[in-house]
């Protein structure tokens, strides 16, 4: 089961990476970024997953006796934080995209090319 999670998360990462690299529409790029982020979050959760594991909460004697069957809670905490970071990035980038539309009259990422920095 863990292998399925890891494979599907990696495929999400590559789908998103393809989107970031090939799309010109800024909103599509941001959606692709969110797809990468979902993939990475899923990867982190899959790293802490145990087949048939228990919820990592100490609630009864039974759960204390089965400590080694609990899934790892640390990656889940990391994922919560990174979801918040992703929300911040997306909101901020969309706000910038609105201003980009006002200043460039376009939401294509290529619209800035005419300023001409040839790196």
């Amino acid at each position: 089961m863990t292998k399925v999670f890891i494979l599907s998360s990696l495929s999400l990462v590559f789908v998103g990476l393809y989107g970031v690299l090939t799309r010109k529409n800024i909103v599509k790029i941001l959606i692709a970024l969110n797809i990468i982020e979902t993939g990475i979050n899923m990867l982190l959760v899959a790293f802490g997953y145990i087949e048939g594991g228990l919820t990592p909460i100490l609630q009864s004697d039974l759960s204390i006796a089965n400590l080694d069957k609990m899934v790892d809670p640390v990656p889940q905490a990391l994922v919560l934080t990174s979801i918040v970071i992703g929300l911040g990035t997306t909101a901020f980038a969309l706000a910038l995209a609105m201003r980009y539309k006002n200043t460039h009259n376009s939401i294509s990422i290529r619209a800035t090319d005419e300023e001409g920095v040839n790196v």
Partner: protein
Amino acid sequence: MNSIVFLVVIPLIAAFLSLFLEKLNKLAMYIVTLFNLIFSITVLMSGNIPFNVAIGGWRAPFGINFVVTDITIYFLLLVNIAALISITVVNNIKEYQFYSFYFVLLAATNGMVLTGDMFNFYLFTELSTFAIAGLVAYKRDRLSTGAALKFLILSSTASLFSLASIGLIYKTLGTLNFADIALKLSKLNQASYNLILILFLSSMLVELKIFPFNLWVVKSYEGSITSVNMFTHGMLGTAGIYGAIRILLIVFPNMYSTNISKVLIILSVFTVLIGEVGALKEKNLVKILAFSSMAQMGVFMFGIALGSFESIKGALYIVVSNYLAKLVMFLVTKQYSNAVESKNYIDMKGLGRKYPILAISFTIAALSLMGMPFFAGFWGKFSIVVSALALGKLSTIGIAILLIASVVEGVYYLRISHTFFAEKDVNSVNISRVYSLIPFVLAAIILAIGIYPNFIEQILWNVIDEIKNAPDKYINIILSLK
């Protein structure tokens, strides 16, 4: 010394308060920055270094910890001094957004330097990325909006890969603490080690402006106001350098036995070439400085990638000289371009005759970046050349290209200095002499380091000593091993 967390907490509180302070924002900016600077000087003088603070009382491998060692305290001072110098050029800004982003940047860069935890480092890096993107977009025009959006997309894509590498570290080693990772690193097999390091490097190279990841640099510098340029260079850049030193040299010290260091050598040589050639044909002074700061980062990375202690010392000299020189150059550029209302250096013809102190400071900084003897940058390039020649074919070719590139650097910098001193009537221009003070002091420090390097050499050897004896001086302190 639990109070070290104030360095991060107080700027964050100020970032919230700045929404309500209105006209007092500028005063609050000075108070918070001075607090951070004085606090870090107090820590340096207190004699308690090194120490380790476990936040919330959770001991090191389990909780988040802040560490203060020799490297940390010097970089903390560099970040906070750069903040203080940069805010002296902030004037006529009334929007609270600017101040709010500045406080977040201050908190994030201080946090990047202090933290001893991989995930915490990632969070602070992301936070500083937001802050810089917001500050770059401050001008609200076409160029700055595009630059901010591109920087945000590039750096968040890169940092997602570093998140993946953090996940891999946790999966393989079961820890996120810098010291604990360094201790358990020998248990890692070569393939996972390479994968982790490559994924993590991708996000660090964005901040270090190394070649495939530096497409954001020129537009961000060109599109933003001078104080933001100085934040990007002095605060974000310095914190990124700290991250490179801490992570490449102490947490993952086995890099030199793999091919990654060779790849880094090639990338840094490309960075230097692109930076110098790009600057050569530019007329816009801010763009020239952006290209040149890329090139200097390339030289720094070359020194780190060579991996001998002599070359690391050279790279640290490059850091100090580039840090001082770019601050001088941005200050001079700000005054001159305000005076003639143009960023093209040809329009600044003749200003050096009327305001010689600014132009002489600029020339001193330029000579130091080129690596002329008797200036700070010379000792850096000297150490790197000496150790590169001893380290085989690839590094010899690399250093040859680097030396040719510094000749190119000399050409365009001296052309600018010559334009400053060329004859032209500039009586209508007026610059207050007060603004000459800070560039003059910084240029004097560059000269002092160049002529009498012993007082900074001692500090650099302390830093290198920590890298050499990382188990004794870093790992055992944090994990309280005997």
